[in-house]
């Protein structure tokens, strides 16, 4: 347990120290919110949520890249694979909440007519999905440029796709969109329920995928036999 907590703490520390990157990451959600602010507030909220999702995913992508050389040594130092990927994920979730909090506050202050509880739940879904999503891309694509481009593509698709369409539920951040509709348009609770369910399922699937890929990459190779000193 301590190993997991230590990895989580160091992940969060590392991330929150990268002030420059954080500032730039926060710029996108903020600009998204401000650009369409005069128009329909729902658009701003959806753009904001997408911006937060993108920011946290990118942070997760970079964190995974930065840790790549470190993880084999940590394996040798006594960590099991699950300490490493679960710890990193926990740290990213914590950092994600820190990133999302000011934007939640922004909506509370700037758009009092929304169901703020709904916005909060939507942000939870954003952060929940984004961290393992960014990690998965990070472990699959070794170079950060490719990973960032893929993230941009996903975000663009997410933004443009019709949420009611058939393929929409396959996009990772559909949950936050659906919950946003509940928060903005004060629709029936079905939106909230669907959104939360989607969020939980997608998060679980992504966590499982990260677990699988990481366990394979960090496995102890079979050709190495380790004996205790007699």
């Amino acid at each position, binding site marked *: 347990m*301590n*190993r997991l907590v*230590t*990895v989580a703490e*160091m992940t969060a*520390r*590392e*991330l929150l*120290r*990268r002030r420059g990157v954080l500032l730039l990451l926060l710029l996108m959600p903020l600009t998204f919110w401000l650009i369409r602010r005069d128009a329909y507030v729902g658009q701003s909220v959806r753009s904001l949520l997408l911006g937060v999702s993108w920011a946290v995913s990118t942070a997760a992508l970079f964190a995974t890249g*930065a*840790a790549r*050389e*470190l993880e*084999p*040594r*940590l394996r*040798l*130092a*006594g*960590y099991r694979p699950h300490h490493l990927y679960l710890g990193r994920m926990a740290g990213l979730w914590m950092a994600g909440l820190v990133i999302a909090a000011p934007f939640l506050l922004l909506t509370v202050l700037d758009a009092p007519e929304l169901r703020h509880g709904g916005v909060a739940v939507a942000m939870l879904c954003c952060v929940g999905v984004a961290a393992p999503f960014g990690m998965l891309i990070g472990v699959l694509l070794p170079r950060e440029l490719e990973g960032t481009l893929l993230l941009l593509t996903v975000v663009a698709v997410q933004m443009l796709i019709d949420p009611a369409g058939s393929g929409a539920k396959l996009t990772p951040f559909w949950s936050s969109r659906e919950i946003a509709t509940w928060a903005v348009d004060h629709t029936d609770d079905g939106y909230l329920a669907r959104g939360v369910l989607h969020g939980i399922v997608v998060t679980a699937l992504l966590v499982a995928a990260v677990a699988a890929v990481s366990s394979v990459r960090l496995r*102890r*190779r*079979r*050709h*190495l*036999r*380790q*004996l*205790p*000193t*007699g």
Partner: protein
Amino acid sequence: MNADEWLRTLAAELHQRRVAADAARHVVVEAATHLREDGRDPWLVLGPPGEYAAAISESIGPAPRPRPGPVRLHAQGITKRYGRHTVLRDASLTVRAGQIAAVVGANGCGKSTFLRICAGLVSLDTGQVTVTGRLGYCPQQGGTADFLLPDEHFVLVGAGRGVARGPARRAGRTAARQLGWEAGGDVLTRHLSGGTRQKLNLTMSTLSEPDVLLLDEPYQGFDHGTYVNFWDQLARLRDQGKAIVVVTHLLNQLDRVDLVLDLTAATRGERA
């Protein structure tokens, strides 16, 4: 400097010169008795502790090297192919406790790959590796987190074996001091010079007190003084009974090494 400080410095200087521990103890006690009977300032009576230690260690001679112990690393018949390119062909190496092995060869001949295979980080096509005891590995570059403090690296590595934070930090700083570096600062790793970052890299690999230490040219960016310290440190670790494998393309320290594995021809070979 009072007598106690003088004696402490003497003990440190003797240790630095690799005088055997019990001989050093005798020397310090004898000096203490003499100082007590004489009563005057130690610097007057015995001179600077460093010079005294130098004269003593010359008289005593260095501690005899302990005989090599049981086999700690046995790598046999390692073959590795990347596509159609054979990087390693039937490479073998056996290292005992208290030995240093050097892996040499031209660039690109698979030295790093061999080490990573021995560390279990890369799979091989044929062959087997048996390691007795704990493994430590120092990659050629990277291996550190840019946005963490050195102390935080020590805590991370220590936690892997359940070492608490305070002791882990202390152990890290002590190991760093052997390389001539005061590690407990507020400077993020990314702001450290290349040589210092490599010292951190190296310190991390020795922290978990491994029995087998695999080092991939860890001295990049070291100035000459640190380079010498590094080989002294390796000798100390060797005398503690560790089995050490160093990948190097610098051949000027090969006289301090027990075995050499030459991978140039991508063939087998172990010459003692």
